[in-house]
């Protein structure tokens, strides 16, 4: 039998309503967890005073430098049992698949060593085991680790990654997201567990341009599926679709929505695609999923430098590899190699607390590309420079060099 609950008039109001209530869940835990009783007390206090009362500190597990988010209460005097409320970030499997057996084991471990509060998942993809005393961190981790899971990233480290459901359950998937996710990230294990980079670095993997992982805007290196050849068309299914929805619907919702006007609906209800001008945006395939699918010569586009707001404003990633195959072992080694070059160059040239994208902004894309050994490509830009403020006396040499490179 646990400690007597604090009065939580404001939080109580969050128990009503159709959406599952985290408050109800916390109260359930509070029945036999004093830590949660006081957590609810502190949270109610935050609601009453409109302020947060956690501070950071240090907490970790033997052998690792990161992966635990330490939380100490600033009002432990009022709520002693939740004085420590640390979080373990655990890396999920690609696509966040689980069987109930492993989930139950997580529950058991966390019921025993922690508060019993688990987030599935954090915005970076971690299983967040939230609410742990300093002394229990090691025990909890050891059991989770024995279960086959490992800590995720925190601090200036390579971070936990996310990949979409993709190959596992999506017809749009243009590469094996799960394999890429594991091949790349598991190659940086040391940079995940021992934070020593200028700042955080995130990989995200989306199987197609729908970018269900928000990789362009939320990761330092976004790997997104695409194709180089023609969209696969099943004209019979096209006709069925047109019959079912009517020509007007198809024109208004497919034909005229193509960003490059690459689609024509022929008089015989067949679809003509100007594949040279298709920019692989996925829209027509999204709408006519039975009739259309990505081409067969598939691979990925890679963008670098995405992040959110801090310091200079949100940044989207920039295309640095318009297309690369991702099928053979060599392909997967190559993409890992690329990630390594980028992180190494950034580790050497990034300022403290400067994201890769901020560094590129500061030194210029050219210098970054040179640093990681990639040739410029017109696909990296929306349009070439509009101002003459550049010193071009290297023009002839550069053009000669490029000719060289092309011819062999």
């Amino acid at each position: 039998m646990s400690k007597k609950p604090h009065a939580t008039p404001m939080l109580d109001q969050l128990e009503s309503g159709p959406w599952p209530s985290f408050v109800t869940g916390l109260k359930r835990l509070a029945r036999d967890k004093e830590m949660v009783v006081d957590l609810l007390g502190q949270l109610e206090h935050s609601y009453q005073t409109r302020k947060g009362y956690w501070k950071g500190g240090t907490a970790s597990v033997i052998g690792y430098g990161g992966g635990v988010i330490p939380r100490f209460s600033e009002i432990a005097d009022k709520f002693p049992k939740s004085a420590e409320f640390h979080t373990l970030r655990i890396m999920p499997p690609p696509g966040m698949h689980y069987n109930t057996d492993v989930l139950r084991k997580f529950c058991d471990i966390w019921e025993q060593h922690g508060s019993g509060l688990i987030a599935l998942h954090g915005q970076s993809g971690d299983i967040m085991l939230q609410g742990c005393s300093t002394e229990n961190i090691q025990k909890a981790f050891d059991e989770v680790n024995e279960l086959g899971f490992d800590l995720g990233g925190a601090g200036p480290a390579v971070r936990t990654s996310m990949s979409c459901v993709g190959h596992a359950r999506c017809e749009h998937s243009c590469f094996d997201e799960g394999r890429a996710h594991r091949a790349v990230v598991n190659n940086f294990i040391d940079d995940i567990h021992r934070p020593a980079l200028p700042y955080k670095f995130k990989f995200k993997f989306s199987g197609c341009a729908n970018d269900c992982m928000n990789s362009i805007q939320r990761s330092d290196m976004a790997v997104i599926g695409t194709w180089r050849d023609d969209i696969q068309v099943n004209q019979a299914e096209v006709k069925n679709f047109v019959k079912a929805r009517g020509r007007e619907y198809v024109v208004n919702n497919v034909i005229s929505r193509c960003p490059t006007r690459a689609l024509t609906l022929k008089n015989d209800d067949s679809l003509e695609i100007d594949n040279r001008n298709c920019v692989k945006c996925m829209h027509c395939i999204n709408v006519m999923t039975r009739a259309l699918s990505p081409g067969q010569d598939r691979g990925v586009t890679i963008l670098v430098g995405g992040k959110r707001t801090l310091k200079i404003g949100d940044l989207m990633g920039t295309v640095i590899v318009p297309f690369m195959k991702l099928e053979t072992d060599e392909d997967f080694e190559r993409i890992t190699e690329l990630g390594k070059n980028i992180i190494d160059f950034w580790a050497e040239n990034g300022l403290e607390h400067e994201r890769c994208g901020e560094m590129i902004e500061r030194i210029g894309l050219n210098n970054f590309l040179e640093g990681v050994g990639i040739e410029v490509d017109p696909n990296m830009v929306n349009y070439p420079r509009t101002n003459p403020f550049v010193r071009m006396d290297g023009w002839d040499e550069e053009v000669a060099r490029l000719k060289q490179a092309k011819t062999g």
Partner: protein
Amino acid sequence: MTTQPRMPIESGVPDHFQYMHPTLRRNYGQWAWHERPRPGVLHHVSHTGDEVWTVRAGTQRQMDVGTIRKLCDIADKYADGYVRFTIRSNIEFMVADENRVKPLIAALEKEGFPIGGTGNSVSMISHTQGWLHCDIPGTDASGVVKSLMDELHQEFVSEDMPNRVKITTSCCQINCGGQGDIAINIQHTKPPKINHDLVANVCERPSVVARCPVAAIRPAMVNGRPSLEVDEKKCVCCGACYPPCPPMQINDPEHSKIAIWVGGKNANARSKPMFHKLVAAGIPNNPPRWPEAAAIVKNILRVYKEDAHDWERMGEWVERIGWPRFFELTELPFTKYHLDNWRGSRHSLNSSTHIRF
């Protein structure tokens, strides 16, 4: 004699196949097409001929073990004992037999898990930590999301928006929440109040100075002790100085307001990805249910639903009708704060005669 401490097994990202529903595993990379028989249900068909039905349900993300076990019980009884989670903390149950969809849905609804979040619905709001766990929050996250999802329950369980609606929240201006069709974020409106007594002990002054985007912070001696000083004319109240230096109190019960942003888009479908744009600010940070913010969000959704064409994401709709019309239709005031004055903001200015009257 001392026992060797256990050293970690650096196993990294675990293999996903071991946890994957057998039908998904068998058809990995083989899927052909899909349809949505009803809101909350996806029907995927494989080139092998296999089929799978996915039932998507909303969760509170911040789950007690009791809730997770309840979901496991349902999975064991109705869905072969496998589940997966989406990037928006929705849970998905997979079944290989259409007839198993109904009972599964019934069981989930009985336990209070809403079925939906697919297609053109308003899916679960991606949320962050807030007062529950973060060390720098201006507001709560779980509570904001819970109260909003209560309001948007109908929009979650049905699919009658013009296109998917992806809402995000962030409990401070660092914005762990993503870009969204609608984003509900903290917006500080006053410079940090500095607790000078603590600075010397707690803060690495040079790195705090370096953190400020507008160089508004300078080292200073305050009543004889080394501290920091903020040029309040320059300060844009971003809060970047607070994490490295907690004595720079940016959070304020009164002045940490909520701002609402519209038109963010991550997908490359049709249009290129877009950032969300400021539409409303000065909204009170009002627990436990943030009614003022909720009202604005619902109003925006109403107008979007009435006016947008099929497949138009919120940002694409506004681009078609133009921002002036957006403010007209939503009756939100357009102020000088909406004019961007940050780096590169020139690109946001209208340097053409393209105007709708």
